[in-house]
Structures are given as structure tokens and as C-alpha cells.
């Protein structure tokens, strides 16, 4: 059976859930092998074994960090040359997509980004992704011998399948061209203590209608255990960090519940949230397009509606 490479997403060897999802998907296509970039492979091996990685290719080289696309692409090309895989799966992220892009050109392989499903097809690896602000679902086939696919979080439920996870060190020499771009400074982001936007079951977002006061949005989010999102108008005004932006140029979220407060519902905002299971909106303007999407909407002022809802939810919970 052909190998299928899965790029491991980890922090200091702590393997993230998306990697377990990708290893689960990889088993549909062939024999999963993990590709581990970094030095803490021993910490990661048990989890990689648990989800079915027969081999773990280890790239422990300071020139390859996972923060820059060009060296990562060279490293993955070296593994691919050794393994001749049927597919290479990477968790979707800015850097991973760009590494996948370079890898596609290097190896002459078809590339699909942001897949929400991956299957074995009759004439190649078959993928599902969404298009045009999630108004369409598209299925594609990769027709080259190796398929490169970046996969979104929550594409499948991780299923355990014990395997050996034998470590296979890979020597990589990054070219001078690959080393040309450097990270010269890095400032870690402050953690909010709230759930990650893309992983949260509930997201409460505020827009221009907050007038810059996100306190009712945050209070409601905290009562619900939710992540806080923002429209681009709120981000552009400097009211909330860009990392919380929901939409085409922000995060794409698909939670159980999405609450939009003071957000009009522009197509670029919808692109990031319209696949949410349940959508609720509070907006002063009954004509706001966001109401076309909602399961429940309140025409009203968010500064009175949200605090009242917050009190009522708190009362219901206790």
C-alpha cells in the first residue's frame, strides 16, 4: 500500500487534534506516515502511533522551523522523494498552504487547499471544499500520482488505530535560496483565555454597531463559554484585534451557534460564518441582510438586548 504523508501540527511535541484528524483521513488513502518537524519527536510519537502512523519522518534541522514556507517545502520534497507517497496532507494554515504550493510546483503534483473531506476516488484522490463564500460545495479529483491537500480543522472525527510510529530521521540541506527569507523578530500574541475562534462551539461577534464598546459582546460570550469574533469594520476601527476577524480575510468559523451583534451581514462577513449550525443576530435595522441568514433575530439595540439575554441565560443556567 502506498504511503500517505501527514505533516504534524504540534507545539514542542504536543500533537494537535487536527493531526489526529489528518491521520484518520490518510488511512482512507493508504498507509499513514507522519512528518515531524522539530526536536521533540519522542513527546509526539505515542499520539502519532495511537492514530495510525506507521513511520514518523523526523526533520530536526534549525533551518526548517515551520514558520517559513520555502525551507518547509524543501524538507517535504526530500521526504516525498524517499516515500513516493500517494498523497501529502497538511493542516490548513497560511504557511502550510504556501509550502504546499511550492511543493506542488517542485514535484509536479496537483494541489487542493482548504479541503473539508478527503477520500479515495476512482481516478485519484477526491476532495470536497467550499467555494464562493461557501455558497457552493465542490468536489475535485487530483489527477497526478501524488495529491497535495491542505485540510481544514474538523474534517473528520479522529479514530484511533495503533501503529508503530517508527522514527525515520531525514537529512535535509536547505538551499541558500530557501534560507533567504528570515524571521528577524517575533512577538507572541497575548492569550485572551477564551476558546480559539475556529475551535469554539459558540462564537459571539460584534461589529460597527458596538461603537467600539465590546463589553456586552464579551460578557455574553463569557456566559456562553464562547469565543469572541469581530467584523472587519470593528477590526479596521482598531476596536478588536485582526486575529478575531471573521470573514473572507479573517477566520472561517462553523460553530454550533453564531451570534452577530451590530453586524450588517456583508458577503465578505458571511463568507466566514454562514455555515454555522445556528445563527442569531441582533441589529437595530430590520433591513440588515444578516437577518436573511438567521434562525432567530432581534431587531433592537444590542446594548439593551445583549445584557438582558445575558442575565436570562445566567438565570437559566443556575
Amino acid at each position, binding site marked *: 500500500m502506498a504511503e500517505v504523508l501527514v505533516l504534524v501540527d504540534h507545539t514542542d511535541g504536543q500533537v494537535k487534534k487536527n493531526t489526529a484528524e489528518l491521520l484518520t483521513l490518510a488511512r482512507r488513502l493508504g498507509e499513514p506516515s507522519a512528518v515531524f518537524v522539530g526536536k521533540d519527536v519522542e513527546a509526539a510519537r505515542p499520539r502519532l502511533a495511537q492514530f495510525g502512523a506507521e513511520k514518523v519522518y523526523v526533520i530536526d534541522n534549525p533551518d526548517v522551523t515551520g514558520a*517559513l*514556507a*520555502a525551507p518547509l517545502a524543501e524538507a517535504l520534497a526530500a521526504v516525498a522523494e524517499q516515500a513516493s507517497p500517494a498523497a501529502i496532507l497538511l493542516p490548513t494554515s*497560511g504557511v502550510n*498552504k*504556501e*509550502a504546499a*504550493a*511550492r511543493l506542488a*510546483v517542485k514535484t509536479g*503534483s496537483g*494541489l*487542493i*487547499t*482548504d479541503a473539508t473531506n478527503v477520500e479515495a476516488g476512482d481516478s485519484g484522490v*477526491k476532495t470536497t471544499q*467550499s*467555494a*464562493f463564500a461557501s*455558497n*457552493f*460545495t*465542490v*468536489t475535485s*479529483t487530483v*489527477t*497526478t500520482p501524488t495529491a497535495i491537500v491542505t485540510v481544514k480543522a474538523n474534517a473528520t472525527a479522529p479514530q484511533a488505530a495503533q501503529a508503530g510510529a517508527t522514527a525515520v530521521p531525514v537529512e535535509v540541506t536547505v538551499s541558500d*535560496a530557501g534560507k*533567504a*527569507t*528570515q*524571521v*528577524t523578530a*517575533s512577538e507572541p500574541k497575548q492569550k485572551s483565555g477564551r476558546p480559539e475562534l475556529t475551535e469554539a462551539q*459558540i462564537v459571539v461577534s460584534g461589529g460597527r454597531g458596538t461603537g467600539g464598546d465590546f463589553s456586552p459582546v464579551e460578557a455574553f460570550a463569557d456566559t*456562553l463559554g464562547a469565543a469572541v469574533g469581530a467584523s*472587519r469594520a470593528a477590526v479596521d476601527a482598531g476596536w478588536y484585534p*485582526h*486575529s478575531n476577524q471573521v470573514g*473572507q*480575510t479573517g477566520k472561517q468559523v462553523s460553530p454550533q*451557534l453564531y451570534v452577530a451583534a451590530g453586524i450588517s451581514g456583508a458577503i465578505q462577513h458571511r463568507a466566514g460564518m454562514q455555515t454555522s449550525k*445556528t*445563527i*442569531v443576530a*441582533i441589529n437595530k435595522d430590520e433591513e440588515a441582510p444578516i*437577518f436573511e441568514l*438567521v*434562525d*432567530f433575530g*432581534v*431587531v*433592537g*439595540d444590542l446594548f*439593551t*438586548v*445583549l445584557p*438582558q*439575554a445575558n442575565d*436570562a441565560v445566567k438565570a437559566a443556567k443556575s
Partner: protein
Amino acid sequence: MNIVVCVKYVPDAQADRTFSQDNTTDRTNVDGLLSELDEYAVEEALKLAEAGEGEVTVVTVGPDGAAEAIKKALQMGADKGVHVLDDAIHGSDAPATSLVLAEAVKKAAGGSPELVLMGLASTDGTMSVVPAMLAERLGLPQITQLSSLEIADGKVTGRRDSDAASDTLEAPLPAVVSVTDQINEPRYPSFKGIMAAKKKPVETWSLADLGVDAGQVGLESAWTKVESFTARPPREQGEIVTDEGDGGTKLAEFLAKAKLI
């Protein structure tokens, strides 16, 4: 400095975007425009050119209508345009697009470009991969998704934000750079700009002009194939209440009934 900006002509996101019979993006029956995310790249190029010596060339690979994208960039202030137009390009995937773009960029720059500026993503394909592919094909460093940008001493420096950190990146020129919608506020074409654009040179090149074999591009040669597309069923509008002093309570009742709390 010689700046090349790659821009794409895309179907308007405000229109009902859809696919054609052959499963490619419908670029004929849906109004198109310069991808809004490429306006940020054009603006950044204009600012750099205005700050020093320099010329801005916009390059697009696309159908007839793509001339509109060039026109808009020229109206904003770019100096000249290149339109790669060839029926054989229809249906090309990202790797093939980057192949054509690589040859076009080299020819437009008269050899090696000093700086190639691109958008964060095309608003139709939204893959964010063509800049990296182009860098790979040109053998250049990439420095991408920047929300600030500075050129000095033969180097490009900029800020790239991820969820975990805000990084400062640096690369030697020549380089391929992509910018986000955080980087600037694109200008609107002025009346003067609109008039001036009419006299600016636009060249149209075919694949033969670029020495690219038509067999390497297009729908038949693509490495990925769209099998099917399905419109997501429209969301049905649920209950809308007007707040009469109990809107928040009703909202909480809805959440309780839907077992969301």
C-alpha cells in the same frame, strides 16, 4: 525600481457567482472586476514608486474582460499594463497560472524583476498559493501576507501576523511579496487618473509570445479536476422579533429551546 504587480480579474462577490458547464468559474455571465484584494498590492506599489524612482507594471493572466482589471490599476496610477490573453489558458489551475505568470513577469521586467507585488488571495479562488508558486518558478525568495512593508538597503522587511505571534520577516531583493488588506487604504481613481489611464500603454501577449507551450496549461492539462459543484441550500429565515423590552429574554428562550444553553 522596477515593480511588477500581479492582478486578477474576478467575478464580483456582490453578484451571484457560479460555475460554467465545464465546471470552471463562470467569468462570462457574471460581472467582473479587479480583485479587491489586489488593490492593496497596487496601492503599495504606487506608494513605493512615489517615494522613490520607479515604474509600476501590472500584469494579468485572464480572459478578454481582464483588460478591465488592468484599466482600473492604470487609473489608480500604475504606469503600464500587460494582459496575457490566450484561449488555451481557459481552465488553468494555480500551477499553470503561475507558469504563465512567471514568463510574463520576466518579460515585463525585461529579465529579472526587482520586486513582484501580489494580493493576499484572489477573491474567486481564495487559495493564497500563486505568490508562493511564482516565487518557486522564478527561484526567488517569498515574503508573504505582510501587513506592513519597507524597502531599504536592497532588502524588504515586513510584519506577518499569525494567531500565535506577530513576526518581522526580511528577505533580500529581488523577491515576491504578497500583502494583506491590513496594509493600506487603496486610493480611488481620480478624474485625472481616469483620463491619464487612456494614454497608458497596455500590451497583450499570447502564450507563443511568452514561449509557453499551450499543452502545459488549460483545463485538459490541469493537475486537479472539478468533478461537481452543488449550491448550498439557502438558509431559511427563522423567527424575527422586534425588541419591545423583552428582546433579550426572547433570545435566551430561543437558545434554551434549541438546547444551545
